[in-house]
């Protein structure tokens, strides 16, 4: 089972690696670039953030609504400390220092969320993480001195990477893809380590794991820390993609979007996050062209509804069910 997952993941990764080239063959140059950066690239970036949720949900059994906020903490840390951002809040750091600092801040924020939510489960965990996310969102939105309020901080253009301009669509795409690939295989590795196995044990039966002598609480908090790290990487990429960050990027709408991506893809495996975010990004961008421009949100809603109705475990579940129907061989 595991080796097959790895095989499929490698195939998917290979396909994404050659996608920009395939798009160039199929579309005019500017459209190929648009698809590369603004459909695939954006989808992958938000897929990373969604994967931090999927990781917690799949292996820990926690649905956290704070992940977009945690990603935003990374984005804001980057925007506050990096040189060239407008307005200048603290500044003084290059991207080489500001990006690790941003990811560290997100990891710490993830640990804090985990520590606050450590005793809650299910709907209560959902509520407490949502409350945290909205509290921080409102704080950022009304604070001018550090976060520049509603307008946020702009002009976070990204670094030059080995002489390549980050704003180039292909540079951005391959950095996003490389980050996503590393994090994805990192998660697959992590869940097979003792830490990951204990985490899954806690998901299935916390009391039994505690009886075996494992400290349940610290494991849960550490899982949120890992998710914070993942979300932080996504947050940094999303901020550079958007040339800045504003409270709207981490508000209720954005929070719910990340949840929708995860649910569309399926919470059964980390790959679902990327499947979901690509589908979501596609409809978010093109539903206005496919359907009435003044009512395109209806289409997004209907697509979501249909997927969840037909397959409660998302597109991944639908795929598994299809395989079962066709061959009935090794259904998971």
């Amino acid at each position: 089972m595991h080796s097959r997952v790895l095989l499929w993941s490698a195939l998917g990764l290979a396909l994404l690696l050659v996608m920009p080239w395939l798009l160039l063959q199929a579309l005019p140059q500017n459209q190929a670039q648009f698809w590369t950066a603004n459909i695939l690239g954006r989808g992958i970036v938000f897929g990373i953030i969604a994967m931090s949720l999927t990781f917690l949900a799949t292996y820990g059994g926690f649905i956290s609504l704070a992940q977009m906020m945690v990603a935003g903490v990374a984005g804001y840390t980057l925007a506050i400390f990096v040189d060239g951002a407008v307005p200048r809040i603290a500044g003084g750091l290059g991207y080489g220092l500001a990006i690790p600092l941003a990811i560290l801040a997100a990891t710490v924020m993830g640990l804090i969320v985990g520590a606050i939510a450590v005793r809650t489960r299910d709907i209560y965990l959902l509520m407490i993480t949502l409350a945290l996310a909205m509290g921080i969102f409102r704080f950022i939105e009304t604070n001018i001195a550090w976060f520049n309020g509603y307008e946020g901080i702009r002009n976070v253009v990204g670094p030059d990477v080995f002489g390549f301009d980050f704003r180039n669509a292909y540079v951005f795409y391959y950095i996003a893809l490389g980050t996503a690939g590393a994090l994805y295989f990192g998660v697959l590795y992590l869940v097979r380590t003792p830490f990951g196995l204990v985490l899954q044990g806690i998901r299935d039966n916390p009391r039994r794991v505690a009886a075996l002598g494992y400290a349940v609480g610290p494991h849960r908090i550490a899982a949120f820390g890992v998710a914070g790290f993942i979300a932080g990487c996504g947050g940094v990429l999303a901020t550079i993609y958007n040339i800045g960050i504003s409270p709207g990027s981490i508000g209720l709408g954005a929070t719910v979007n990340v949840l929708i991506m995860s649910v569309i893809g399926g919470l059964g495996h980390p790959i679902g996050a990327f499947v979901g975010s690509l589908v979501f990004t596609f409809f978010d961008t093109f539903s206005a062209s496919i359907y009435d421009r003044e009512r395109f949100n209806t289409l997004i809603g209907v697509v979501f509804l249909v997927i969840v109705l037909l397959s409660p475990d998302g597109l991944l579940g639908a795929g598994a069910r299809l395989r079962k129907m066709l061959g009935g061989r090794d259904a998971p």
Partner: protein
Amino acid sequence: MTFSLSRRTALMGTGALLATPAFAQRAPIRLGGLATLEGPFATGGQDGFRCVQMELERINNTVGGRRIEFIRESSNAQADVALARARKLIEQDNVDIILGPLSGAEGIALRDYSRTLTGKTIVNGSSGAADTTLRNPSTNFFRFNTDGTQWMAGLGNHVFRTMGIRDVAIVAGDYAFPYAQVFGFNIEFCRAGGRTTHYWAPLGTTDFGSQIAQINRSDVGALVVVHGGTDGLAFMTQYAQAGGNKPLIAGSIMADQSMLSARGPHRRVMVGMISSGPIADVIDDQSWRDYVERYRRRWLNEGGFQSPSIHGVNYATNLAGILTALAAVDGDLSGNQAAFQRALAAARFKAPTGADVRLDHNRQAISDIFINRVEERDGRAQVVAFSRANGINQTLNTPEAAFLALGSPSRDNPGCVPAAT
């Protein structure tokens, strides 16, 4: 994915087939429209597109011998959403010109985005933050509507001198556009000797209860409301229900048909409200009366207002700038649009209100501002202009260096400068 791709390709193929046999016709100009069809300013965004569509229908979608293809996109007043939609318009839909966006923070984001583009032009829709063009302007971002600070020209003096009010409470949204409006009001009002208390609330606020309680307890002489959209509606509804009875002064998107056309208790307290801005429902000007008549004929039965909203007129004014320039260059966008952008910068025309419009060196409009009162006419509330100032520029006709020295409008810099020595 593949479905849309093949459909798109098929459509483009069909289009090419249809186009080839026609005699050497020039390719259409692709004009992208970006307005808020979602979020707090959805009604304003819809009206913006109404006025654009009406004008394009009038000229039969043709200017300078070229057809105009209008491609609509929608945002929700958030900067990052506006940016994503603008990218789609430029890169995927391959538009030549973007007309939009509607709100302040979006305008600043698109101004920054326009810097990264060559051979494309962004012409503002209705956004009115001052700094979009005043500080760090972008060479391919044009704005033919006046900004939020300009819209307040004359109002502060009217409140202090004519109405004799010495201190006011100001309620306003906590972002770029209301900062510009409050700034414009305070510059005159504080300089004349007035005192202000500010109550800020983030865009999208629905509960103003605590602010209204404080205002009703205080003994200020008047209340200045610089909200708009659903926030403005929520504030005025709650103010009316709380029995608020102070004289009302309003920002430019408050005293507007997008507000007066909504049903609710707010309409009762809004009669008598004083405001200023680039339009009014009733202006003593024949070209405006004709425009309103055309708008009502076209849209009254299709969800339109009794008379066009401020956002609708701003979109129409900016479209008029584009069309004037396109006519001047005969639809020629070659040479990275250099000739077209020169024509835009030099364009002079009349806005639907009858006001003369021209641009300054920052590609920002200089035009007329009206001071208005909400009156009950023909059985409905209407905004009636009773005073008009011609040719107001972005620094309120004060020296630019002195105006810039006042700093950028913000919550911490609301423009309250006491009388100079």
